[in-house]
């Protein structure tokens, strides 16, 4: 009984063997596949053309700095939209939770709002608001496509964020509400001190996914003017007659979105594990 700390146990020995074997197998099969790809793909008849069109290194070098610069605009639009979205989304979530009949119009508004903005393609909202509203004769600077493009994104994403907040609020078990009410606390205090703090914490991973989607949808603003990375890549594409700038743009997006998505997945998985 006391020798269990000396030397590897039988299972450890077995697992070490297994692990060595599977690492070797994985290494072999991976190298075979990678080698096949690296050797065979350049032999295909269209490869030169694909390379020219999608992976032209010269064009990467030439366009990268300007594309990166244009991406800063995406980041900026994202950065100033997020707090607005969070605030509006929470307000609408709470509006939909109001029980007092006097405020029924508020609830109705909340319902209509989320239905409409979740139902229409973002690009349509961007066109309608980003082009339509300035077209009503607003004077500069109030007709800026940055302004109205942002409004379009904020209105759309606030609808999604509101629904997630609401689902968070509803996911808090009734017993928490009961516990607070049974102590004599008022419904608004219960919401503020007991339900909301838990609900908000619980929906962080879902909201992160929405933010990642937003970061990508910022590209749609390019259709109403702002020269952000997607538009800049389009300009290069027409000047250079190559799709490489789009590939570069995609790569720049991935650098931001992959870690963010991974983080969101990780948090969500942790939460799911904790719940079950």
């Amino acid at each position, binding site marked *: 009984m006391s020798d269990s700390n000396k030397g590897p146990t039988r299972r450890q020995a077995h697992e070490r063997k297994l692990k060595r074997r599977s690492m070797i197998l994985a290494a072999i099969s991976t190298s075979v596949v990678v080698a096949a790809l690296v050797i065979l793909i350049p032999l295909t008849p269209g490869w030169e053309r694909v390379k020219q069109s999608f992976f032209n290194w010269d064009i990467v070098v030439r366009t990268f700095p300007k594309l990166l610069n244009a991406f800063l605009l995406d980041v900026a639009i994202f950065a100033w939209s997020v707090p607005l979205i969070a605030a509006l989304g929470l307000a609408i979530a709470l509006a939909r939770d109001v029980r007092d009949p006097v405020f029924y119009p508020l609830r109705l508004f909340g319902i209509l709002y989320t239905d409409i903005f979740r139902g229409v393609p973002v690009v349509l909202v961007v066109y309608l608001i980003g082009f339509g509203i300035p077209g009503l004769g607003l004077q500069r600077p109030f007709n800026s496509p940055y302004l109205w493009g942002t409004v379009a994104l904020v209105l759309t994403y606030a609808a999604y964020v509101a629904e997630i907040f609401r689902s968070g609020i509803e996911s808090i078990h009734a*017993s*928490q509400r*009961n*516990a*607070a*009410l*049974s*102590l*004599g*606390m*008022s419904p608004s*205090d219960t919401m503020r*001190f*007991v339900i909301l*703090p*838990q609900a908000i*914490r619980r929906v962080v991973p879902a909201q992160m996914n929405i933010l990642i989607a937003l970061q990508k949808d910022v590209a749609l603003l390019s259709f109403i003017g702002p020269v952000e990375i997607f538009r800049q890549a389009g300009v290069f594409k027409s000047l250079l007659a190559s799709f490489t700038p789009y590939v570069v743009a995609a790569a720049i997006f991935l650098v931001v979105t992959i870690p963010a998505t991974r983080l969101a997945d990780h948090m969500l998985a942790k939460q799911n594990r904790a719940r079950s």
Partner: protein
Amino acid sequence: MKLQVKNVHKSFGHTKVLNGISLDVAEGEMTCLIGASGSGKSTLLRCINLLEPVDDGEIWLDGAEIADPALDPQPIRQRIGIVFQSFNLFPHMTAEENVMLAPRRIFKTSRDALRPTVEELFDRFGLKDRMHHYPDQLSGGQQQRVAIVRALAMKPEIMLFDEITSALDPELVNEVLQVLKSLKQDGMTMVLATHEMAFARDVADKVCFLDKGSILEQGTPADIFSNPRQERTRDFLARVLGPR
């Protein structure tokens, strides 16, 4: 009588859950509700605390009717403490914050003013070194004791307990039951739904057997456990205590 339940009816949709319950609880007395799962014990306790509106019937607390649907339930709930089966501590707050939240918001007392009373309560129930822990850092028994402290901090006139030990590991049951004994010694009026027959027999002043939403039989523990008059009561006790 401290608490009087008079002919209370309650349905959920078309299911009748309480079917004309009447119950008197005297000051300082401990009343145990026993009965099969689904017989309506939890619902009765929730109705007394106004978490569920009763359909019909009256509930009197200290000579005033409290089940009138036109009344604001908030001040009445402050006078009645309740502890539930599964731990309903607020998971984002420490034990101390859990206990202080309601008094702070309702009586507008500061933390500092509350601290002595709260510390005393924690101390009394052997939780002094757990005050700054979050619920998930506490064992089930500790969580239930904090939940009791939280209810007591509102200085309720009567306490309701809904199977507060049934989600606990068997070894943790006793520490919670000890707390109930000690509250009884202080003269607290209590109503508890329980499956702990041994405890009911030894400690309760009165035992009520609920069956399908009615009180089928009530009396002293000795009456109920040794001489159940009703066939159903005998059945139930046989199944629960029965030969295993």
